[in-house]
């Protein structure tokens, strides 16, 4: 029986839904329309930034339904006309050292479908072989929407960044929904696509005595507001009122923590992010709730993180830095800090396997610099994979992974350390304290 839609559709949209452009496209449209109806969407609106971004970049063998749907789409001649970027690849056995058994697991068992899946992605519109990163909005990658653009993206941190820092409009779409929206060129108008949905239900006051770590501040806010929009005041005091590279990197990490520890798709920072600069406190909804964050609150949140290692009293064995992927500014900074830290600790090499994660284009450019040779000599590895996908390997459960990413902490057994703590561990400074 045909689906009885509730929202307003144009004749063209009805034609697609009724099969005028083929049965598979009709099913894709039905999924989008049902999705919109579930959220009381009034209509479907045109995607104005046609480049998509897919969260599903990994040929995880269990994703049989995804592979099947991809084949259906390809068979029907459907694709994303303006192309898309995708989240990072899951493994990189050339640059992230691992055992023979790990290699076997990654390439033959866990991600055994990676090759065929990438072929499917290419047929559907993957922009290039280097389009795999969770930070597609970096200039080096170039999938950068303008303020007000309507998107059909997934990847919680990318959607969060596009909405908050770029002022684009995108709901927290799930994997597959983002691809379907990009294929039909329409998305349902609800939630973060509407002016009302972009208003803040929370006013968050940052009242700390020093610059808060973005990973912990974002975590605290995400855990408190869940999927609501927060309007953050007092943060501009610490990170300024201009979206510099450093500031954007801060907001990227802050936002990813709000999105993974909660479900924040959009935040406003007073005097800084585009809509907050333009509309100020008029972005606060009537009856908004308040959350005040001071040093003690951040410490409480930090101390609440469970340590899930099997032997928590032992030292970590692997350090992962860059989830979401490091920007060029962050990569340079981490490289400098590691090299300086080793020098002051009187060491030549890092104390444990240390991996920096950054997009392919950034990694390639950085590899041309003398600093790359220096960090490699110091034992640091550089890759463009997804650290979370690395931890899908059950063998990693017994390893003691350390990270300064709150997102990775949330989705894996990795233990969270503040940036300075992690730096001290990998450079051996900790042993001298």
């Amino acid at each position, binding site marked *: 029986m045909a689906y009885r839609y509730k929202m307003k559709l144009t004749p063209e949209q009805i034609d697609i839904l009724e099969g005028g452009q083929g049965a598979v496209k009709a*099913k894709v449209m*039905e*999924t989008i329309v*049902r*999705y919109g109806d*579930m*959220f009381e969407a009034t209509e479907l609106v045109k995607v104005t930034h046609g480049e998509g971004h897919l*969260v*599903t970049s990994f040929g*995880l063998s*269990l*994703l*049989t*339904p*995804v592979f099947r*749907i991809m084949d259906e789409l390809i068979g029907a001649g459907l694709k994303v006309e303006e192309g898309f970027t995708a989240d990072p690849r899951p493994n990189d056995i050339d640059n992230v050292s691992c055992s023979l058994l790990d290699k076997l697991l990654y390439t033959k068992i*866990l991600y055994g479908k990676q090759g065929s899946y990438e072929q499917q992605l290419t047929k559907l519109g993957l922009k290039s072989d280097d389009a795999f990163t969770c930070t597609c909005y970096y200039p080096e990658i170039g999938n950068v929407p303008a303020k007000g653009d309507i998107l059909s993206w*997934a*990847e*919680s941190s990318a*959607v969060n960044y596009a909405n908050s820092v770029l002022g684009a409009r995108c*709901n*927290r*779409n*799930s*994997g*597959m*929904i*983002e691809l379907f929206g990009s294929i039909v060129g329409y998305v349902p108008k609800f*939630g973060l696509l509407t002016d009302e949905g972009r208003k803040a239900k929370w006013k968050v006051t940052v009242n700390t005595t020093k610059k808060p770590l973005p990973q912990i501040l974002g975590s605290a806010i995400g855990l408190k507001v*869940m*999927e609501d929009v927060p309007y953050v005041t007092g943060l501009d005091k610490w990170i300024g009122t201009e979206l510099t590279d450093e500031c954007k990197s801060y907001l990227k990490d802050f936002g990813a923590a709000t999105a*993974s520890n*909660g*479900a924040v798709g959009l935040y406003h920072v007073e005097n800084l992010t585009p809509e907050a600069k333009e509309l100020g406190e008029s972005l606060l909804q009537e009856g908004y709730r308040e959350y005040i964050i001071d040093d003690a609150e951040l410490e409480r949140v930090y101390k609440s993180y*469970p340590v*899930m290692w099997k032997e928590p009293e032992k030292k970590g064995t692997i350090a992962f830095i860059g989830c979401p992927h490091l920007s060029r500014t962050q990569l340079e900074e981490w490289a400098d800090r590691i090299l300086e830290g080793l020098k002051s600790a009187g060491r030549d090499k890092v104390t444990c396997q240390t991996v920096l994660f950054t997009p392919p284009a950034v990694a390639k450019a950085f590899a041309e610099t003398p600093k790359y040779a220096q960090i490699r000599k110091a034992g640091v590895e550089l890759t463009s994979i997804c650290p979370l996908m690395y931890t*899908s390997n*059950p063998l990693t459960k017994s390893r003691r992974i350390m990270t300064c990413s709150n997102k990775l902490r*949330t*989705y894996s*057994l990795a233990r969270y350390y503040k940036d300075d703590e992690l730096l001290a561990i990998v450079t051996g400074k900790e042993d001298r304290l």
Partner: protein
Amino acid sequence: MKEFKGRVLNGGYYKGEAVVSHQGVNTLASFQSPAIMHAKKVKIADQNNPDIFQKNVTGKALCLPQTIGSTTGGMVLQVICSMGINPACLLFSEHIDSLAGAGVILSVVWENSKLIAIDQLGQEFLDTVKTGDTIEVTEDGTVRIL
């Protein structure tokens, strides 16, 4: 017996055990590991959710406010439905969120899943229902705690 009425997103009849999370359920953190391990039952793997951590939800009624976390969430839900190890019902106290909503629709449209989904059951529902309670869900979105 207490009775609650919600909005039917995908209707059906269910009588069985409830598993209750008072905080948002992180779909990726909860379901990914069991799916990767090809587990026959989903034991929730999310270390940050003490309400349901390590609890079996396959074939049960998962009662929750909403889902949270990665935007792979809907797809992960679709995968566990295709594997037949999904909860029988998702009973949301609040309005369903976009990730769970996508998961329900993908499961229904592309997997012909019978996953029951009801939202807007209200905070009192979540305050009342306890893990282990026997509940009955009917086609019109009525949930009875027996």
